[in-house]
């Protein structure tokens, strides 16, 4: 998966979980949980959508990789 594809999947997932968030405004190092106000349930749904889309298993230990947009893209693309 190329970084661009990864970014696109991540942004779509975020749009679904937090519809009122301005996706365009997210910078590479925005903290997805704190800055976008995702609570644990939202984050769980975010992970669920990502693993569904990419077909990869995302264990709880991998959650830290998804902290920011940049780290998430790197991890998904690099994965």
């Amino acid at each position, binding site marked *: 998966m190329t970084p661009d594809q990864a970014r696109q999947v991540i942004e779509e997932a975020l749009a679904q979980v*937090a519809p*009122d968030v301005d996706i365009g405004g997210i910078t590479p190092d925005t903290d997805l*949980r704190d800055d976008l106000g995702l*609570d*644990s349930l939202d984050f*769980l749904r975010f*992970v669920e959508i990502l*693993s569904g889309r990419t077909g990869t298993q995302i264990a*709880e230990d991998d959650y830290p990789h998804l902290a920011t947009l940049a780290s998430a893209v790197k991890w998904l693309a690099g994965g």
Partner: protein
Amino acid sequence: MPALGADMDEGTVLEWLVKPGDEVHKGDVIAVIDTAKSAIDVESFYTGTVEQLLIGVGQTVPVGTVLAMIAEPAAQPAAQPPPAGPVEHKEPERPPRPAAPPKRKLKRVPAGEGHPTATISPLIRKRAHELGVDLAKLRGTGHEGTVTRADVERAAAGQQAAALKPPSRAPSRVRATPRARRLAAELGVDMAGLTGTGPDGSVKEADVRRAVPAREAAPAREAAPAREAAPAREAVQPTAASAARSGAERAQSMRQAIGRLMARSKREIPHYYVGNTVDMTRSLDWLHERNRELEVSERLVPAALLLKAAALAARQVPDLNGYWLDDQFSPADAVHLGLVISLRGGGLLAPAIHDAADLRLAELMSRMRDLVIRARAGRLRGSELTDATITVTNLGDQGVESVFGVIYPPQVALVGFGKVSERPVAVGGLIGVRPVVVTTLAADHRASDAMTGARYLAEVSDLLQRPEEL
């Protein structure tokens, strides 16, 4: 922008007939304004020199907007040149459009479920008082746990109504006339089993009277029409019906509704607070282990454990699970756990997870997720908004250590959970770092004492040490 008619809200500047520097006199036509009806000449109410045209040709502005500035003639020291057009003074505050008061959702007859309330009507409370029966210890046998006159009479006569099993929540709504429904409640008759002789098999008074066993069914003719005392319980939120109004308007009216409820709570309820730090090591390890093999969709979040513990503890300490009504505490039979959910646009809801204490963790988790999604989409059922018997607010995700909340009347307790944080803890004399959560309880001192509150938090802490039993 002058108000040029009873039904005009805004106007468009078609033409300026003056320019900065021009002299104008009271009554001179200085501009042409376009309204829904037509173009109209607008005169100046002032004499002076035009200083500045603030609104350009083609611009549409609401009535009352300042269009231009006119300097008064030199003779008077012009402190602040009065603008042309309308008199420049504070726009008379149009009273803020009163936000529609949240529709008072009567618990008694939520749409579709015509069963009477689980609370006790004053008539029966009076009867119990007459017969010296302690309502607190009485199990209502009426529909959904309503205490009936027959219960009171039987309790007074010493025989405990063991025979009649409290009817489970009637699967479908029984078609019965209001008269029959009220009589059934009073005579302790379960209508579910009756065949009605009314139109389409609906149950009528006569059917109910025939169903009362053995007792001589003298129809009690009440003289005055006794109105059922419906304890109006304020729903926390305006119903979805207000969804039609604009977002901002709805948020504002929701804010007002919450404000009123919280103010009433603070005014009427003598809160007491207790707090406790709970070691979460066992729970989190168990959770982590369990989630490892599970699909993402079945994984649990720590909040699920906290909620289950809160629900089970509420069942152990019934004094915190129920309602304060008519100056009395009425314990609820089931534990309907209110969950505070913050909405994206601001404001919050506290819908109930019914029978939370009986749910398995996975079920509780899916109920939580479903509730949050529906709350944020404004698709909650009326009963969910008003059924909670004790409420939990979990601010762990928001990263605060502890929260002491405000109770939702008429409930008598609010449980607070802070975030999971690593803390130095002495264990067996040695300092170790452990994940802990600060649990708090705000409770109504009329219904219980701090000792009961403490017993509750201890119970929660104890349950969290045995996560496998949750």
